[in-house]
């Protein structure tokens, strides 16, 4: 057994240990913290699997935004912790454990018996990269070969926003999401909220820009921008915008809109829906990505902010 394998086993053990902690620990808050740690460490596995694009996504979502989302809920539901004493009985737990183990075993068997050499589309993706002029194959798959999925996924994000907003009380409809945070303007938090966002914005844009040829892209960049936006909100330096604002609505659909328009232009004048003329492919894709990073940042930020709670009028 090589030292690399030992390392991999250690990594897998740490990650799984955190997973177990997350499931079995009694207190919800501890479970949430455990899951955030899990999410951050899974990024290590993704790097080890040489899937850096996913590692970036997992770091941004699994650990960062997802963690904050879960943690906020855990904090608000803290009092509900005591009430839910309806833990299922031993029989249920034992059968659930047995069935989960069986499922895992079946899955593990199927994984171990996967063919060698494995089927792959990597050569096809590389061979067709000329059509876009981008050398990051993952971006090519997302933006060209399987662009339809990406576009629909952006609509999923939009529907999530609509779903969250539809939970607003009628009196707060069109108002601002989340509580208003106030902070001491000279405090540590405000200091950090002034210092970090400029750095974060640079990093976010860098991740977007580098995504053309290296790991990165609009989603990962957007997640960083969203967290910087939220930081200024948490520190009380900014407030969430009222959801009825037209400009906000426009930002929230800019990405999928541009995607759809480019797609339809391709349908009318080009080779097919969502096909790019090779000469224009790179600028078009980058243009869509720029629109998308704004949309994603706004969407993720608002998803974390929650349903409108305060009427737009003070």
């Amino acid at each position: 057994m090589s030292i690399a394998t030992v390392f991999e086993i250690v990594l897998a053990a740490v990650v799984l240990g955190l997973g177990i902690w997350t499931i079995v620990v009694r207190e919800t808050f501890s479970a949430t913290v455990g899951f955030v740690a899990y999410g951050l460490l899974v990024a290590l596995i993704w790097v080890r699997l040489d899937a850096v694009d996913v590692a970036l996504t997992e770091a941004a979502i699994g650990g960062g935004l997802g963690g904050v989302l879960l943690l906020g809920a855990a904090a608000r539901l803290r009092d509900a912790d005591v009430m839910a004493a309806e833990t299922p009985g031993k029989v249920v737990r034992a059968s659930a454990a047995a069935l989960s183990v069986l499922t895992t075993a079946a899955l593990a068997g199927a994984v171990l018996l996967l063919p060698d050499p494995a089927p792959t589309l990597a050569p096809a993706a590389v061979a067709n990269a000329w059509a876009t002029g981008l050398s990051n194959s993952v971006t090519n798959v997302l933006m060209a070969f399987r662009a339809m999925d990406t576009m629909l996924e952006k609509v999923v994000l939009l529907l999530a926003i609509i779903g969250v907003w539809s939970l607003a009380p009628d009196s707060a409809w069109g108002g601002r999401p989340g509580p208003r945070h106030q902070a001491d303007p000279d405090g540590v938090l405000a200091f950090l909220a002034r210092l970090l966002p400029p750095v974060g914005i640079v990093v976010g844009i860098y991740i977007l820009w580098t995504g053309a040829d290296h790991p990165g892209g609009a989603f990962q960049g957007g997640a960083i921008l969203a967290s910087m936006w939220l930081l200024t909100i948490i520190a009380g330096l900014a407030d969430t915008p009222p959801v009825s604002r037209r400009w906000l609505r426009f930002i929230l659909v800019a990405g999928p809109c541009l995607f759809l328009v480019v797609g339809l232009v391709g349908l009318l004048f080009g080779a097919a829906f969502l096909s790019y003329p090779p000469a224009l492919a790179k600028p078009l894709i980058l243009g869509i990505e720029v629109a998308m990073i704004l949309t994603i940042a706004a969407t993720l930020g608002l998803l974390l902010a929650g349903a409108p709670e305060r009427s737009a009028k003070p």
Partner: protein
Amino acid sequence: MSLVRDMITIAAVSAGAFFFLAGTVGLLRFPDTLTRLHALTKADNLGLGLVVLGLLPQAGGLRDGLKLVSIWLLGLLAGATVSQLIARAARHGESTR
């Protein structure tokens, strides 16, 4: 030349690993929140700094080097501010435990 680089890397990374060890021992041994926080932020940030220092000779170019340093700076910034916030939280939150 590459030997010198590797020597620097080995030395700095080993020192970094030692500080991580020290930080963890502190976490395990220290009795209360504030001292553990102390162990965590001081020792681990030093460990990270040494690892970054050790990896600088292996970095591909100026850009990677800059990124490495800024990662460390971010870690320091977070350590300095967040540990202060947590410390206050811990002191005020003792009753809510």
